[in-house]
């Protein structure tokens, strides 16, 4: 198993763990962390591609992803704060307004 292969597997693992965190955790901030993890997994992949090939495309793409991730994190935290104020909880279980009423 070469270094690249290992990193690919690692990034896949990272993505899946991020997903698992995002799916299983009840606390909104931890969910946000999971999402950050997934993004980082993608970044890792991009960096890896950049390493394999000539040019700066992968790096720059990763850079933009980081920017977007920052925005997402900032806005996400703001929303979480807001919803905490609204529901007095940051537990996603209790925030189920999307469900159709029956």
């Amino acid at each position, binding site marked *: 198993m070469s270094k690249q292969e290992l990193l690919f597997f690692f990034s896949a693992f990272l993505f899946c763990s991020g*997903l698992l965190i995002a799916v299983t955790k009840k606390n909104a*901030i931890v969910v946000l962390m*999971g999402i950050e993890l997934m993004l980082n997994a993608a970044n890792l992949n991009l960096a890896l591609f950049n390493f394999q090939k*000539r040019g700066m495309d992968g790096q*720059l793409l990763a850079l933009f992803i*980081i*920017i977007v991730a920052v925005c997402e*994190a900032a*806005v996400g935290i703001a929303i979480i704060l807001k919803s905490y104020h609204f529901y007095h909880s940051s537990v996603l279980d209790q925030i189920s307004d999307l469900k159709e009423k029956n």
Partner: protein
Amino acid sequence: MMQEVILYLFIGFSIMSVLVILLNRNVFYSALALLTCLISLSGIYGLLQAEFLAVTQLLIYAGGVLVLMIFGIMLTNRIAGKSFESKSHNWIPGILVTTSLLVVLVITFQNSSIKATQNELNTGNHIRNVGIELMSTYAAPFEVSGVLLLVCLIGAALTASSFKKSSHE
């Protein structure tokens, strides 16, 4: 050789920290574990000759996002007592889905041609190249991302401020 050892170390650190996030219940610990994970990732970036990315990762994630998250945790959970706890659910379907996703990804990677590519060593001043590329080829996304940041800043500020205001009432 030294590089590989360091790489394995970083990978090990990240995996451990990810597992900590997954398995522990304390939100605060999760945040700290995430910090470890991100730092080790920035190390990996460095090893992959993406110095600028590594630095950015350190600055933004470790310095910015994480602090933001810790603030968030502070604001949404009572500091005293056991309220940092985060419950979890959906374990079985979650593991099923993620495992299958992992399997799919691995198989895909095995069948793909990516692993066969030769490792060409990039030479030259990477950071300088990044700057040139950003200002020439990626000028438009760069501008857009600036706008995005601005919008995001305003949005976050607005949301937060209205929160404060209404909470004050």
